[in-house]
């Protein structure tokens, strides 16, 4: 019995006023959906309803796109770039002011631990607006020609794993480059996007520059297929990404896609072992493993396998699973019943295919969607759990003998979003990085994000980059 049991340290929810229901944010105000239909959004940690969210149909989408177009033509395209930037600076500052409110709301709607929304999601979201505010009047220096032009109206569809952060990754560069936006948040996590609408109002952002339309898959499809959209940005599964690419093929629409991954986290025998173990844990258990770039395949050099697994298991026993509002929680709730079912299904496949499952002892709450942190050892390349994206707190452990073998195994996937490399030998970091077919490579660290650092994948992990100088070109038509 550990005498030092941490008592509950709950973050208060008083700072947030969740409305009973929300309309669609179109042309600077909230309006009821034309169908009059709403759908519930719940707290995945308790399964209790938080609010009713408007279900936008194609008529609503049409109105939003038209508002964005009008705002583009009449206001936003005429505005001096420095003034555009100032709106983004204002938004960044207001997000910083209201950071706690956003963090609590994000945790309620998404299920992620308050520590993560407070220390990672929200600060990074504000930083993205701050960073892109500075680009608005400097686009001629961004490598896109001397007079790059925006596309016009962009349609953006974001996932449920980092709702507010993904919103920032989409809206900040779009606005900075002079586009106007129609954004559809994920159906299970719309609340922080709707609160963001209030930030736009507080910042005085002209009506129609940002429009937020909530809904389900059909809403997204309506947005993608709307003829008034010049460019689409999508983050989500590879499956849906391919559907989008299919539906716009042959049209004039530009598109960027940020899709799935099955990243290899390579631990060489000369790694700083304790920090590498921390990197493994961070790589797959951060955000409940709901991360496209998660280090979901541990590739550990065979000669240190036992040492690493012993330390890893001891470390996993310290992971605190529970109430996301508790400041000491490390692993929160799985975002939805559907996602939990998928994780369970793939884990059962792991069992069936002969891999060995291990989780530390864990008391999971009765209500809500939960999955204990899990590792599978004895995994081979052909197992489903080595090939398919689980998108949960499940790590598949494979081994390698030589650096060349590590590369072969790491690259042996249709995905190519990210990878991790752990070694104290500099030349080996650079060699490994040069051989890995992945868009983001973390050496001696993992899951680090920054607005200045371009993010995106090779192969079936998508098209294009977000963040940094490179991320701007997604939203600009180059000149000269």
């Amino acid at each position: 019995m550990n005498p030092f049991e941490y008592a509950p340290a709950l973050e208060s929810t008083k700072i947030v006023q969740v409305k009973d229901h929300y309309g669609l944010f179109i042309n600077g105000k909230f309006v009821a959906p034309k169908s009059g239909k709403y759908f519930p959004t719940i707290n995945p940690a308790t399964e209790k309803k938080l609010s009713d969210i408007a279900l936008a149909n194609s008529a609503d989408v049409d109105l939003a796109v038209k508002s964005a177009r009008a705002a583009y033509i009449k206001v936003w395209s005429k505005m001096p770039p420095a003034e555009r930037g100032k709106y983004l600076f204002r938004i960044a500052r207001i997000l910083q002011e209201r950071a706690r409110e956003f963090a609590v709301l994000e945790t309620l709607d998404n299920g992620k631990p308050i520590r993560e929304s407070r220390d990672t999601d929200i600060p990074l979201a504000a930083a993205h607006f701050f960073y892109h505010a500075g680009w608005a009047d400097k686009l001629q220096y961004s490598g896109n020609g001397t007079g790059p032009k925006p596309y016009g109206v962009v349609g953006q569809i974001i996932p449920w794993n980092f709702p507010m952060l993904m919103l920032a990754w989409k809206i900040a560069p779009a606005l900075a480059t002079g586009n106007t936006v129609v954004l559809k948040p994920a159906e299970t996590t719309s609340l922080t996007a709707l609160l963001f609408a209030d930030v736009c109002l507080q910042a005085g952002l002209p009506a129609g520059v940002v429009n937020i339309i909530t809904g389900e898959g059909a809403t997204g499809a309506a947005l993608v297929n709307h003829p008034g959209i010049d460019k689409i940005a999508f983050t989500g599964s590879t499956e849906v990404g391919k559907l989008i690419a299919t539906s716009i093929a042959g049209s004039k629409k530009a598109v960027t896609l940020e899709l799935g991954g099955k990243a290899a986290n390579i631990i060489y025998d000369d790694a700083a072992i304790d920090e590498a173990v921390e990197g493994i844990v961070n790589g797959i258990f951060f955000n409940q493993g709901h991360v496209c770039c998660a280090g979901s395949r541990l590739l550990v050099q065979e000669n240190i396998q036992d040492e690493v697994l012993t330390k890893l298991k001891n470390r996993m026993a310290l992971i605190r699973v529970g109430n996301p509002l508790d400041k000491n929680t490390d692993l929160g709730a799985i975002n939805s019943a559907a996602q939990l079912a998928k994780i369970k299904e793939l884990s059962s496949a792991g069992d069936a295919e002969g891999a060995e499952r291990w989780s530390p002892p864990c008391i999971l709450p009765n209500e809500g969607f939960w999955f204990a942190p899990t590792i599978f050892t004895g995994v081979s390349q052909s197992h489903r759990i080595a090939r398919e994206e689980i998108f949960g707190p499940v790590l598949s452990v494979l081994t390698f003998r030589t650096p060349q073998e590590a590369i072969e195994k790491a690259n042996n996937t249709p995905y190519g979003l990210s990878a991790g490399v752990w070694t104290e030998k500099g030349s080996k970091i650079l060699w490994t990085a040069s051989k890995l077919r992945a868009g983001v490579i973390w050496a001696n660290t993992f899951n680090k994000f920054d607005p200045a650092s371009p993010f995106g994948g090779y192969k079936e992990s998508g098209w294009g980059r977000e963040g940094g100088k490179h991320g701007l070109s997604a939203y600009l038509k180059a000149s000269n």
Partner: protein
Amino acid sequence: MIVDSTENSLRAFLKTLPAVDEVGAHARAGMLATRSIKTTSKSWAIDMAISMIDLTTLEGADTPGKVTGLCAKAVRPDAMDPTVPSVGAVCVYNDMVGIARKKLDEIGGKSIPVAAVATAFPSGRASFAVKAQDTMDAINAGAAEIDMVIDRGAFLSGRYGEVFDEIVRIKELCGTHAHLKVILETGELVTLDNVRKASYLAMLAGADFIKTSTGKVTPAATAPVVLVMLEAVRDYYAMTKIRIGVKPAGGIRNTKDAIKQLVLVNEIAGSEWLTPQFFRIGASALLNDLLLQRMKMRDGYYESPSYVTLD
């Protein structure tokens, strides 16, 4: 045998230790510093921290009056509240040991050991004969704990055998009379890799405790340093089944700092170390802040420093 105490054997072993990634270690320590310790766990932690304090005075200006006052505080930290535990030890220079021991015995502090700094503390720059005499003076005067310093000059110039031998010989002098804490002076070692190496050197040579600092050099007991030392004792236990203690000293000034240290112990080494037998905190001003926080938990409002004694 892990090493055979020759220079080559030591050097070879130390080379096999994995490196510490500084950024990663800082990140882990930083994450553990966000643990929010409230209500019952906070009360427990405050009392545990009090019982782990090596209440310290190490000034050139120390007098019998100063030391006896400290001893009174050590036995009864809060004059108005007898439920407050006594501290873990009283820590003084060796010529004050006799005075401290006598006073403690007189006022009901028989169970509180006197720890003495020794071996030409704080610099460690003296002949071995002087260091040995320093140690024996303390033991003969009644010290049950010896806090020695390693020879940092020898360590930084690669003479690991010398560092090792000194610790072995001082440990011999301690015999069954005293337990030995070995001060690494991590502020002078600078890198976390050195902290790891020095920790192992001390443990292999027979240290009962590894201690961060003399308190005379900053930085002292920073979280990443303590983290690396806790990893060392954890891994050493896994290798040898010998449990060695850790003592951070210097820079731990308030309750928040102390609780952060206990969280580190809890999550890096494990709850087996959460006892004065295996974790001590070298401090002086910390005690009063712990008392103020304890009063706040008890009474529900913040106290003023006027309500704790300055001894």
